[in-house]
C-alpha cells in the first residue's frame, strides 16, 4: 500500500498548489463556466459544453468518472481529429491526476521468459512506428437505441481519428519472450475503482492478435504527447477495435496461459458483450441466449458538412463532405442518396491514410427542387460489408451502424 500512498501524496500536493496556477496543463479552473448547450436528437439529450484540461469545449456526458463527447462539427474540420477535440471516457472514478514521466514504468509479467519493467525512455529506444487509426467508444450512438437502454447516452461524437506513434505491442512481448502455451495478453492502466470490491478495468487480447502488427503502445497522438485525459503517457492502440480495448495510462501487460477469471475479468466476461450471432442483435427488449466480447467496428459513414435542419439554395452547387471507416479492411466506396434511399450516387474518396483511418469523401451536389429532402450516406468496406437501412438492437446499445440520414431544406 505504501506505493499507492505515494500516488495519493502527489495528488495532495497538487491540491495544495493548484491555486498558484502551477502548470499550463492544469489550465482551466472551475471559474470557466459552461458557455453553451447542445441538444442531441433524442429524449433527455441536452448536453452542457464544458472545458477540461487540454480540451476545447466538449459535450459533458458525465462528470465522475469523466466522459466527454466531441461536438459533431469537429469531424468536418479535418480527417485527423484534433487532440483538444478528441472524446474522453473513463470507467473508474479513481483516475490518476498526476503522473511523473521519469518514474513511470510499464511492466510485462506472467507467462514470459523475462519479466520487464520499462521506463518511457527505454520504450522509446525500442523503435517508433506510426499508424492512423479511429478510436470509437463501444457505446457510441447508444442514445439512438430504440427502445432506449441504460448506459452512457451518447450521440455520434464518441469517436475520433488520430495519427498514433509508438512501438508495436509485439516488440515488447518479444523482448520479454512469450512462453509456449500463452493464450491471452491482459492489459491494465493506472485508473482504479473507488471501492476495493469494484472490479478493476482489465482487457485481454488473444495472443495471435497481440503478436500481430496491429496493436501499438503509443506515446504520441497527432505529433504531440497524448493528452492527459486520453491516457498520457502510454495508451494501447487496438486499430479497428472499439475503445474499450484502448487502455489509458497503460502500465501493466500480463501474459496468461489460461482464461482471465476472477473479479477483474468483469470488463471481458460480464460487460462489453454483444449477442453471439451473425447480426449481434436480438429482438428489441429481449435478452440474448449467448454473448461474446465486442471486438471490431462495423462499417459506418457520416455526412459532416451539413446537419439536420441545414438550409441550402436550389440550383446552387454545394460541396457535400463526410467520413467513413470500418474495422480494418478499408473503405471501398461511399454512396449518397438524396431521395430517401431510392437512388444512390457514388462519391469520390479523398486521400487514403490507411485501412484503420477515417476516409474522407466529397461530392459536388446541386439540390434541384425546393422543399425538404433526406440525404443518406452508405459506405461499403473492402471486406464487402455494407451498412443496413434499418437499425438492429442489442441490450448494450452497441454496434450501431445503420445508414445515417440528414434532413435539410432546399430553399
Amino acid at each position, binding site marked *: 500500500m505504501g506505493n499507492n500512498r505515494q500516488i495519493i501524496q502527489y495528488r495532495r500536493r497538487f491540491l495544495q498548489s493548484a491555486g498558484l496556477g502551477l502548470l499550463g*496543463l492544469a489550465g482551466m479552473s472551475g471559474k470557466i463556466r459552461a458557455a453553451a448547450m447542445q441538444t442531441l436528437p433524442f429524449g433527455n439529450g441536452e448536453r452542457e459544453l464544458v*472545458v477540461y484540461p487540454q480540451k476545447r469545449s466538449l459535450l459533458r*456526458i458525465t462528470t465522475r468518472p469523466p466522459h466527454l463527447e466531441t461536438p459533431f462539427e469537429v469531424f468536418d474540420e479535418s480527417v485527423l481529429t484534433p487532440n483538444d477535440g478528441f472524446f474522453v471516457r473513463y470507467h473508474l472514478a479513481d483516475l490518476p491526476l498526476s503522473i*511523473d514521466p521519469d518514474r513511470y514504468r510499464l511492466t510485462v509479467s506472467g507467462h514470459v521468459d523475462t519479466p520487464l519493467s520499462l521506463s518511457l525512455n527505454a520504450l522509446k529506444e525500442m523503435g517508433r512506428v506510426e499508424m492512423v487509426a479511429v478510436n470509437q467508444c463501444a457505446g457510441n450512438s447508444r442514445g439512438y437505441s430504440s427502445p432506449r437502454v441504460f448506459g452512457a447516452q451518447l450521440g455520434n461524437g464518441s469517436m475520433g481519428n488520430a495519427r498514433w506513434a509508438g512501438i508495436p505491442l509485439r516488440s515488447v512481448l518479444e523482448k520479454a519472450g512469450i512462453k509456449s502455451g500463452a493464450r491471452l495478453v491482459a492489459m491494465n492502466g493506472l485508473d482504479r475503482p*473507488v471501492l476495493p470490491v469494484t472490479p478493476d478495468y482489465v482487457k485481454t487480447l488473444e495472443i495471435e492478435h497481440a503478436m500481430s502488427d496491429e496493436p501499438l503502445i503509443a506515446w504520441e497522438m497527432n505529433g504531440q504527447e497524448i493528452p492527459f485525459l486520453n491516457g498520457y503517457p502510454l495508451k494501447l492502440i487496438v486499430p479497428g477495435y472499439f475503445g474499450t480495448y484502448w487502455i489509458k495510462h497503460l*502500465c501493466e501487460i500480463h501474459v496468461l496461459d489460461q482464461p482471465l477469471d*476472477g*473479479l477483474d475479468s468483469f470488463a471481458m466476461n460480464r*460487460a462489453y458483450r454483444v449477442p453471439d450471432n451473425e447480426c449481434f442483435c436480438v429482438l428489441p427488449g429481449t435478452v440474448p441466449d449467448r454473448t461474446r466480447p465486442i471486438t471490431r467496428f462495423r462499417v459506418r459513414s457520416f455526412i459532416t458538412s451539413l446537419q439536420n435542419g441545414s438550409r441550402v439554395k436550389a440550383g446552387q452547387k454545394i460541396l457535400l463532405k463526410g467520413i467513413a471507416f470500418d474495422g480494418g479492411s478499408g473503405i471501398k466506396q461511399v454512396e449518397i442518396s438524396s431521395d430517401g434511399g431510392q437512388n444512390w450516387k457514388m462519391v469520390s474518396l479523398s486521400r487514403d491514410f490507411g485501412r484503420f483511418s477515417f476516409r474522407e469523401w466529397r461530392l459536388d451536389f446541386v439540390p434541384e427542387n425546393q422543399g425538404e429532402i433526406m440525404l443518406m450516406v452508405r459506405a461499403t468496406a473492402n471486406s464487402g460489408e455494407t451498412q443496413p437501412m434499418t437499425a438492429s438492437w442489442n441490450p448494450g446499445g452497441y454496434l450501431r451502424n445503420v445508414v445515417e440520414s440528414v434532413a435539410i431544406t432546399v430553399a
Partner: protein
Amino acid sequence: MQYLIYSLAALILCFSSSPGMAAPKYISLPPETAKLKKSGHPGYQVALQKCTICHSADYISLQPPGMSLRQWTDEVSKMKHAFGAPISDDEVSLIGEYLALTYGNEKIGIPVFPAHVEKTGAPGARVVDASALLTQNGCFGCHAVDRKVVGPAFRDVAERYRKNPQAIETVMKNIKAGGSGKWGSIPMPSFAALSNSDIKALAVFVLEQ
C-alpha cells in the same frame, strides 16, 4: 482476485523506481456540480449517501426518460452485484423506487415511506450503536480503522484532530457535508440525512481510534 494481486504488484513496479528529474504532470478537473433531484421518498437519502461514492449524480440524470420501476431497480441491483455498491437488498428497492419516481415513468403505486425504511439509517431510524451505523451507511466501503482505503484511515483522522478543541464539531460537519480535498480528490458523499445524534456517534467513534 488473483488478478487484483497482479495489479497491485504492477503499481509497485510502476512507481517505486528512483526519484525522477522532470516534474510530474498534473491536471485538475472542474468541480462536480451535478446533484440528485430532491424527493420526499426515503430512497433519495440513501441514494445521496451511496450512489455518489463511485459516480457523479449526472450518471443518473443522463439516463433515458420513461424507464420503469423494474428497469431502474434492475440497474441499481447491478450496481450492488456487479460493481460492489455497499447497499442492502432493501436499499436496492428503495433507491430503485426513488429513481423510477423521480427520473422514470413511475407515477403512483409505490407506497411512500414503506415499512423497511426503519432498517436503513434514513430519517426516523433510531440507532445509536456506532458500529451498526458504520455498517448501515457503507462507511467501510471507503474507510478502515488503520489504513487508507479510498478515504483516510479513521486513525489518521483522529490523529489530525487530536489537539483540536473543535474536533467533534469539525468531524460532524465533515460527515454531514461531505466534500473533497482534505484527504484526496475523491469526494465523500454528504450524510446530511442522518440525525445529529447519529452523526455525533460516528464522529466520536472516529476520534476515539
